[in-house]
């Protein structure tokens, strides 16, 4: 029987030992392969993807569609307007006696003074402005042997409906090493600033009211000596205006605006044939200040464009802001259909930019409004284009190159293909070729044009092999598309390209 007991004991021990041994086995990854077929991408490319967001395609029944666009192409830089220099004002209060001490009881006033803080603005005479940003830094120092109360009011600087005020109590200087001081910064962004000073009729001045005395609620008698001082310094800095009123002065602004058109690296060759019905280049004066524009040159790529208005002064009246935003603006326009050479003939050859040069004068006639100029930073003078282009377009061997950046994506142990199915709804033949670097995968396909009418869009499928390594490496897909139409083709505005991508391949699942 003892033999039985020994067997049982041994069995239990060995079982437990075996279990523990196996429990502590090294765990290697568990892997298996799954075959995945999934739709991944379904997207449409239509006119909205290549036109500005505010462009419209008008489709009169039975006629060719028109691309209509009146949009902003440049904002004239008038940033010189409303530049307020950083300004510091300091007050140094000293007693007008020698010796001392003189006892100053609680609640006494040592200084009560209204003062204009002047801003050194050369030329303009501002009356009011609203700040987008700005800081008011302050420093107060006292050598007085007693508590000092300082109250600095700026009734013309109103933030959130409340005038900005500094109210500070300094401890006796003798308690803090002979000089009591305090400093801080007040954020005056969004503040409305009255620049008419104390009188209400000045310009470029902020009214201030400074009171220095001893606090009523501290029962301490200050001992003032003749050589004591209380110094206050305030610095307005970083003031950027949102809007500003007053007289802006008369000054010139250089105009040298360039509008990128066809990047040669993206459009290396080809011709685009267009026949616009309307094409106006416009200057819109949104400021409540008169403008004079003298456009001295206009060029498309390297080709100078001549127009009867080039070199002539063009006067634009001030905008009417009486009804609020948007203002009623004066507009000057140039008809681009009457240029020499023809603007759109030059444009057909894919110039890289449109450039306009000249000068713009603010208030060319002086202060004709009695100091009532107005500028809002969101409404600067604008260059706009007004276009009406029938979508009757000829593309001749137009080449489009671009690079699609592929972010590194971790899909471990995947090997398969991307099937890209393209339905070409445009009456444009497209040849498409691409190469994925650094993987070296490449593809090429020709997308036949849609025949027109209600016919089905032809479908082209491109298969691109992909693997984990390629996806992890990321890189660039450099592709080139060649586009051509058989002469001038009418577009309906409903054309679109549908791109669907599905992924098919084997993914090796790894469970660590």
């Amino acid at each position, binding site marked *: 029987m003892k033999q039985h007991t020994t067997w049982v004991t041994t069995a239990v021990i060995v*079982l437990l030992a075996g279990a523990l041994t196996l429990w502590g086995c090294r765990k290697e990854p568990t892997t*298996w392969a799954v075959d995945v077929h999934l739709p991944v991408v379904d997207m449409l490319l239509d006119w909205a993807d290549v036109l500005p967001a505010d462009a419209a395609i008008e489709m009169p029944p039975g006629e060719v569609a028109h691309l209509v666009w009146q949009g902003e192409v440049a904002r004239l830089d008038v940033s010189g307007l409303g530049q307020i220099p950083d300004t510091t004002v300091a007050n140094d209060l000293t007693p007008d006696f020698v010796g001392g001490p003189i006892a100053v009881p609680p609640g006494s006033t040592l200084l009560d003074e209204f003062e204009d803080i002047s801003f050194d603005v050369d030329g303009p005479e501002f009356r009011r402005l609203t700040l987008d940003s700005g800081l008011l830094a302050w420093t107060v120092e006292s050598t007085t042997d007693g508590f000092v109360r300082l109250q600095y009011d700026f009734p013309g600087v109103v933030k959130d409906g409340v005038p900005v005020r500094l109210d500070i109590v300094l401890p006796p200087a003798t308690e803090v090493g002979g000089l009591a001081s305090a400093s801080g910064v007040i954020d005056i962004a969004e503040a409305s600033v009255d620049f008419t000073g104390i009188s209400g009729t000045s310009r470029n001045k902020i009214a201030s009211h400074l009171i220095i005395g001893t606090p009523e609620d501290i029962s301490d008698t200050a001992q003032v000596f003749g050589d004591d001082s209380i110094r206050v310094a305030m610095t307005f800095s970083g003031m950027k205006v949102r809007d500003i009123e007053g007289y802006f002065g008369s000054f010139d602004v250089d105009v040298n605006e360039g509008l990128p058109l066809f990047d040669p690296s993206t459009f290396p060759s080809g011709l685009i044939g267009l026949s616009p019905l309307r094409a106006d280049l416009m200057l819109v004066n949104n400021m409540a200040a008169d403008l004079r524009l003298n456009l001295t040159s206009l060029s498309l790529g390297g080709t100078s464009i001549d127009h009867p208005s080039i070199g002539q002064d063009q006067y634009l009246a001030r905008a009417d802001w009486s009804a609020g935003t948007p203002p009623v603006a004066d507009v000057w326009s140039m008809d681009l259909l009457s240029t020499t050479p023809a603007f759109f003939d030059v444009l057909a050859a894919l110039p890289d930019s449109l450039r306009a040069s000249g000068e713009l004068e603010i208030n060319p006639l002086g202060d004709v409004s009695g100091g009532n100029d107005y500028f809002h930073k969101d409404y600067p003078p604008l260059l706009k284009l007004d276009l009406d282009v029938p979508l009757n377009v000829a593309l001749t061997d137009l080449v489009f190159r671009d690079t699609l950046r592929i972010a590194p994506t971790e899909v471990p142990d995947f090997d398969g293909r991307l099937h890209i199915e393209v339905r070409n709804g445009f009456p444009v033949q497209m040849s498409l070729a691409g190469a994925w670097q650094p993987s070296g995968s490449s593809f090429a396909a020709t997308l036949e044009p849609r025949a027109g009418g209600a016919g089905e869009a032809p479908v082209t499928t491109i298969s691109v092999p992909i693997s984990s390594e390629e996806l992890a490496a990321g890189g660039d897909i450099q592709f080139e598309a060649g586009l051509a139409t058989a002469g001038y083709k009418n577009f309906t505005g409903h054309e679109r390209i549908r791109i669907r991508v599905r992924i098919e391949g084997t993914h090796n699942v790894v469970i660590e």
Partner: protein
Amino acid sequence: MSRFVFFFATVALLFAGAFATTAFGQAVSSSPSVRFQVDSLPRAADSGCNWELSIQVDHRSNAIDNAFAATMLIGGALSPEAIAAARDEMRSRGTLGLRGNIRFETSDLAARRGWRIESGIVSDVRWTPELFDLVFAGNASHLGRFDVLNGTRGRAWQLNTIMRTGFWKNEHNALHWGLGLAHRSVGAQGDISTGYFWVSSNVDTLYTSLYGRSTVLEAQGLGLAGQIRYRRTDPASQVALTLEATHLGALFVAPGDVRVEVDTVLGTTGLPLAGDGWSIESLQGDGFAESLIVRDTLAGHFEALPTALSGGLTGAIIPGLAWEVRATVGGWRPTPEAMAGLQFKVGRRSIAGIRAVYGGWGKLRPAIWAALPVGQHHTLTLYAEDPVAAFQGTGLGRGFGLQLAKSLPTGADNRR
């Protein structure tokens, strides 16, 4: 001598199972589907104190074979053949149960009182064949058909109980009961209430919906647990009836567990490259997966214990040979479990049995057991379920048990 041979063979089988390369799951599994027959053996005497110490481990599946399970646990490559074999075993759903527990029980025969302490894990996982295919084979062979994921669920508890036990008996009836505390220390559970996946045959449309929840159970659960067993012997027919309920009761789970919930429907012919909502760009962005998840902290609540009910009959055939049948439901079993077997005397004091078991988490499988005297007052019972397949990679699980009790076996002809 025969009992020595039998004992040695059984222990050797257990050893081999423990050290088999595919036996990793054994250490963490158990077989609750079979009660030791020693439980129903008469005590050696009507006075004194008896005790039992038992360990059971078992994992059982209707599809996941031992090699598959070992690869999942230990690592390695799952071959397409292994995956296909598991898929072929499945019918309407796949099931996997993993159990293990250790129990110590004492019984004062004079006072008819005792204690029962038990600690173990209980788990139940079930899934649809379609989910299995999607996870282990991909969707390539499922194009154009709806994959149903509903009904997939998994749960695992670590459960401890301590009970005061008692029994009453007369000439033909015996009633055992227990009442005490139950404690759940940790666990996890999750389910897919609604889930579909469909990709069109030409791979241009995908529809998927998922409503599922998952909770890591970290809040302590404490409650009442009970058990009851009634046994009646019909002296005329020599047939004994046993009815039993275990893990009766419920836990109050303290607040604090975080439940993660996903409720998403996506029908698409492909996503745009960029844009708000679902797009290739947003899918790759940080926090997209998190945006699909709703987390809430559960309040305190009650949860039922994994109650199991069983009923069995035992009867003599000839002296030294008896039959037994039993049916068990509950205890998180996905299907009722049925057992039929024979018991026979081996030598003067040992008993052995063979069984056929069907249901629960697995398919039809054999089982063997033996109750062997150890000294004058102790019995060692060994149990193995599907003992041959347990050591083969193609076996659908393993189940082993070992019990040492201060009591004596009696002959198979009077085990009622």
